[in-house]
C-alpha cells in the first residue's frame, strides 16, 4: 500500500489521509434521491458527516470544488484487470489507478484471466490486490469451470464468498442447454448471469462488423445477426427459467430492440452499452488500425443512434467500459491476428460527457444514473448515495475541464485506446471511497487560515504517465 502511494504521487494524484475533509461549493447530484444542488459536503472518518452550508468553526482539510460535480461514485461493471495471468497488460493495481483516473470508485472484473476466476481463492486474491485502494474490485466469476463451456463452476461456494455475478465473458456460453442450467442455478443464489451475446457459428472468424466496410476491406465479417440471435436465445431462456440475465456490451440495433420488447413484456433483464459502441463506427477501420478492433465489433451510425436512444430512455440500463488492455506489441500485428479489445476506464467519462451529455442527447442525471446507480443495482451491491451518515463513495469531476486523450499518457499499463488525440470536455478530478480521498494534483485545496483565498497546493502535473 505504501508503495502504491508513492506510485500515486508520481502519477499526478494526491492521496489525502486526513480524517476530515470538506468539499466546498460543488454541485451535488444524486439521481436516487433527486438531489441536484450546490452544497458543501463534509466527510469525516469515511462517512458523509454534513451536507449544507459549511460550518464556520469546522476544522479539517478543505477542497475548493466550485464548478465541479460530485455524484455517487462511478462503477464500471465490465472491466478486464488481466490479473492473474496477464500482468503485462494490466494488474489489479494499475487497473485501479486507471479506474480512479477515470472517476470510478468500483469495478467488476471479468474472469477471463489465467487461471480463470472460478474458485474462491482467485476471488480472494484479486480482492487482496485491491485492498487499501479507493476502488472496490468485485470479481465476476466464470459461469463454467475454466470458461470452457463444459460444466458449471462451483457457484454456491463462489456466491458464499461474495460473488454476485457470473460470466464467461470473452466468450459466450455456446450451449443453450448449459445456459439454461446456469440461469437456474444462479437464480437459486440470486446471482446475475452476464452474457457476452454472440452466436459463434455465425461469427467464427469475424474481426469486424459485416457490412459495406468489411466487404471493401476484405476482412471477415461479424454480422449483427450473430448478436441478435444470441440476445434472443438468452432472453428466451431467462423467460423460461426466471433467471437474472444481464446482456453485456450490446452493440446492435436489433439487440437493443429485443431488450426493449422484453422489458415491455415485464421481464427482469438488464443490459449495458459501452462508450465505444455509442460513439465509434466500423468506418473507422479503413486504416486497419487494430486499436479499433473490439468484440463485439464497432457497428454503423444507425446502431449508435438506436443504442443511444435505448440508453437515454432506460431500455439499456447502464454504461460499462469493457476496458480491455493489450500491449502495443500484441496489437502491432496483422489485423486479423490482433487481439480484440480497447481501453475504456480513463476515457468513458470524457467521451460520454462530451459526445452525448454536452450535445444534449443524454441528460446529466441519466448519465450519472447509468454510470453509478444502475451498475450497483444490477450487481446487488450496496448503493452509493449522497446522504448524511452514508459511506462516502463519490466521484468528483470537472465538467468544463478540456483535455486531449494521449495514448502514451495512460494510467493503464497498456495504450490501446481508440480515442487517441480526441479533444474532450469533462474529466474526473477525484474519487472518494473506503475512507480514502484521491485528488488529481491540479485540484485546489484551501486552509482555514486562508479561507478567502485558495491556492494550488501542488503544481499542475503535466503527465499522468504510469510509473
Amino acid at each position, binding site marked *: 500500500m505504501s508503495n502504491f502511494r508513492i506510485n500515486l504521487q508520481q502519477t499526478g494524484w494526491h492521496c489525502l489521509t486526513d480524517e476530515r475533509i470538506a468539499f466546498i461549493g460543488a454541485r451535488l447530484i444524486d439521481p436516487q434521491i433527486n438531489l441536484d444542488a450546490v452544497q458543501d459536503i463534509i466527510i469525516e472518518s469515511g462517512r458523509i458527516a454534513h451536507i449544507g452550508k459549511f460550518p464556520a468553526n469546522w476544522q479539517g482539510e478543505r477542497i475548493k470544488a466550485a464548478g465541479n460535480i460530485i455524484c455517487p461514485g462511478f462503477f464500471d461493471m465490465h472491466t478486464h484487470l488481466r490479473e492473474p495471468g496477464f500482468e503485462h497488460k494490466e494488474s489489479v493495481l494499475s487497473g485501479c489507478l486507471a479506474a480512479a483516473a477515470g472517476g470510478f470508485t468500483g469495478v467488476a472484473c471479468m474472469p477471463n484471466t489465467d487461471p480463470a476466476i472460478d474458485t474462491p481463492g482467485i476471488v480472494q486474491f484479486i480482492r487482496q490486490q485491491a485492498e487499501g485502494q479507493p476502488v472496490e474490485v468485485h470479481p465476476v466469476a466464470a459461469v463454467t469451470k475454466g470458461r470452457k463451456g463444459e460444466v458449471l463452476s462451483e457457484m454456491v461456494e463462489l456466491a458464499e464468498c461474495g460473488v454476485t455475478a457470473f460470466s464467461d465473458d470473452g466468450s459466450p456460453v455456446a450451449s443453450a442447454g448449459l445456459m439454461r442450467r446456469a440461469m437456474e442455478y444462479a437464480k437459486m443464489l440470486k446471482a446475475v448471469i452476464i452474457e457476452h451475446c454472440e452466436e459463434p457459428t455465425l461469427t467464427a472468424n469475424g474481426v469486424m462488423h459485416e457490412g459495406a466496410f468489411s466487404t471493401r476491406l476484405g476482412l471477415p465479417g461479424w454480422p449483427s445477426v450473430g448478436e441478435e440471435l444470441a440476445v434472443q436465445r438468452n432472453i428466451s431462456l431467462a423467460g423460461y427459467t426466471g433467471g437474472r440475465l444481464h446482456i453485456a456490451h450490446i452493440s446492435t440495433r436489433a439487440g437493443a430492440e429485443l431488450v426493449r420488447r422484453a422489458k415491455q413484456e415485464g421481464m427482469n433483464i438488464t443490459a449495458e452499452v459501452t462508450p465505444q459502441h455509442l460513439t465509434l463506427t466500423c468506418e473507422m477501420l479503413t486504416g486497419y488500425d487494430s486499436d479499433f478492433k473490439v468484440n463485439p465489433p464497432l457497428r454503423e451510425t444507425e446502431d449508435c443512434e438506436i443504442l443511444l436512444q435505448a440508453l437515454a430512455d432506460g431500455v439499456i440500463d447502464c454504461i460499462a467500459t469493457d476496458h480491455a488492455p493489450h500491449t502495443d506489441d500484441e496489437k502491432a500485428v*496483422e489485423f486479423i491476428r490482433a487481439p480484440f479489445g480497447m481501453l475504456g476506464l480513463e476515457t468513458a467519462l470524457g467521451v460520454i460527457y462530451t459526445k452525448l451529455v454536452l450535445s444534449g442527447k443524454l441528460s446529466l442525471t441519466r448519465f450519472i444514473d447509468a454510470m453509478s446507480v444502475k451498475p450497483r443495482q444490477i450487481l446487488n451491491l450496496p448503493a452509493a448515495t449522497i446522504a448524511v451518515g452514508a459511506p462516502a463513495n463519490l466521484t468528483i469531476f470537472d465538467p468544463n475541464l478540456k483535455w486531449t486523450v494521449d495514448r502514451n499518457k495512460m494510467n493503464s499499463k497498456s495504450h490501446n485506446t481508440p480515442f487517441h488525440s480526441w479533444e474532450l470536455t469533462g474529466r474526473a478530478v477525484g474519487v472518494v471511497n473506503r475512507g480514502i480521498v484521491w485528488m488529481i494534483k491540479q485540484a485546489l485545496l484551501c486552509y482555514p487560515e486562508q479561507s478567502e483565498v485558495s491556492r494550488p497546493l501542488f503544481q499542475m502535473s503535466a503527465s499522468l504517465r504510469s510509473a
Partner: protein
Amino acid sequence: MSPHNKIDLEPPVLTHLLGLDGVPEPVITEILDTAENFLAVLERPIPKVPSLRGVTVANLFFENSTRTRISFELAEKRLSADTINFSTSGSSVAKGETLLDTVKNIEAMKVDVVVMRHWAAGSSKFLADRIDAKVVNAGDGTHEHPTQGLLDMLTIRRKLGALKGLKVLILGDIAHSRVARSNIFGLLNCGAEVKVCGPATLIPREAESLGVEVIPDLDEGLKWCNVVNVLRLQLERMSQGLIPSLRDYQRRYGLTRLRLEKAAKDIVVMHPGPMNRGVEIDSNVADGPWSVILSQVKHGVAVRMAALFLISGREKDEG
C-alpha cells in the same frame, strides 16, 4: 473513401501500391501507359533496361504463390534491380517472429522496395505505415491484388481499345477474391461498368456497396458483358460449406462453350489462374478464341515493371 492509398497527383506519384481502391484514373492510366512501353521493351532481342539499376527489391511471400512471384522476379530482372527472395509457408508463426520484425530485419539490409504477398487482409497497409521502404502489395488476404487488377485492365484495354463504358462481368467467388476487389475498384475508377455473378454464398451481402450490380444468372450476365473475368474457385470452399460440390457449382456457374455460344456475341474471357479446368472454366473456353489468358500472363510482367518503376521514383530517361 480510401485513405490508405496515399497518392499525390500532378505529377502522379505512387508512394506505395497497396490497392486500387481510391486510386484515381490518371494514376491508373499512367501505370498502364508505362506498362505499354515496357511491353515494347519485352519484345526487344535483349528484353532488359537499366531503369532500376542499384535499386534493391525484396520479394516477401508469406503465402504460397508461383506465378505472381515469378512474374515479379522477372519484372525486377528486366529492370536490372537487385532482388532478394523470402518465402515462408502459410500462416506459420512457429518461429515466433512477428511480421513487423521479419520485415524490419530485411529492410535493415538496405532494401528500397518491398513486394509482399501475405494471407492477412491489410498487411501491406500495416507495413507501409511502419517501414521506410516502398511497399507493393502482391496480394493481401481477401483484400486486394492491385497488380493483377492492373494487368487485367491492361489486357482489356489492349484488346478492346478503352476501359470507359466497357461492361465487365466478374464470375465466381467474389467474397474471398482479392482479384475481384482490385478489378472492381480499378475498373470503376476508370469508368467501366462492373457486375458480379456467382452463388449467393460466395457474393458478399453488401457487394452492391462496392458500386457493382449482382447478376445471379450467368447467361444474363454473358448477354450483358463485353468481358468476363472468371475467378478461380478455391477448393476449400466446399469444406467450409459454402458450396455443396464442384459439380453443383459448375452446373450453374461453370463457363462453358455452350453458354458463350448461346450469348452469340464477342466476349473476352479472362482468368487470373491457376485454373480448375472443367470447374469454373472449360478447356475449350480457356484455350478457345475468346480467351486472352496467356496475354494476361505476359502483361503481368509489364505491369509489374511499370509499378516498380513508378514507385521507385526514377526518371523515365532510361526506358
